[in-house]
């Protein structure tokens, strides 16, 4: 199975990189762009055949390493 993890700063945590990107997009003429958030995607293979078990495992990985839950939230997709 292929796991895809998306990690973003939590709402309410200032994303200065997102702000800078938003400012640049405004400068290029896309003035209606708002609330840009920059995150990261982490993808990997898992041997598990059971999607539910795999998802639980990936969530444990997020809690332990892939995200810092003090500042970041995450979304997990397993397919």
């Amino acid at each position: 199975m292929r796991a895809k993890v998306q990690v973003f700063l939590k709402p309410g945590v200032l994303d200065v990189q997102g702000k800078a990107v938003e400012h640049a997009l405004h400068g290029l003429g896309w003035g209606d762009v708002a609330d840009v958030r920059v995150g990261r995607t982490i993808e990997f293979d898992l041997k598990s055949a059971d999607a539910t078990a795999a998802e639980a495992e990936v969530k444990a990985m997020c809690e332990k390493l892939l995200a810092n839950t003090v500042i970041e939230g995450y979304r997990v997709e397993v397919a």
Partner: protein
Amino acid sequence: MKAAVVVFPGSNCDRDCKVAIERSTGAHVDMVWHGDSALPQGVDLVVLPGGFSYGDYLRCGAMAALSPVMSDVKAAAERGVAVVGICNGFQILCEAGLLPGALLRNERLKYVCKSVDLAVANAQTRFTAGYAGRREVRMTVGNGEGNFFADDATLDRLEGEGQVAFRYLDNPNGSARDIAGVVNARGNVLGLMPHPDRAFEAELGSADGALLFQSALASA
């Protein structure tokens, strides 16, 4: 008196820390490789130095927090041994769960490298006792991700319990409530973004950092 400086791949202030501790306290300082399973016996002070451990991959300090030696650093902290994380070392202590909060990208997205004036917010911690009677101290910062963040409840608790050790007089990176350094609830683990190791004798522009190492070892 015995101190240990942990060396991670990508640490770059490890030697500075060793020299700073030796010259300001006369203590014996062992360098400990991050892959070692244990700290030297009878160590009174453990320092996690500045730098870019693991190239700041994933998040600053995230990989280093999982290094083999960190389980013994945690055990030492639980026994009450003094632990100081400076700059990247502060990020590592937060990632390891030894200190609350996290360090975000600097508010203005700039790497900041300069001397900063700090207020000693609590001169009764075991790391700041030497600053009693001093209102301001000067150290140097060098960071791109030194913007201290914690939720409001945590910040209120840190302030209420006297866990804020240092504050910036002129906040260089957007840190919440101007916080430059915090201690854990027990008071034996300190993390700070400014470098006492770059301010331990007058030739460096300030000798104020020496007092921090002296205080840490005096209370051991």
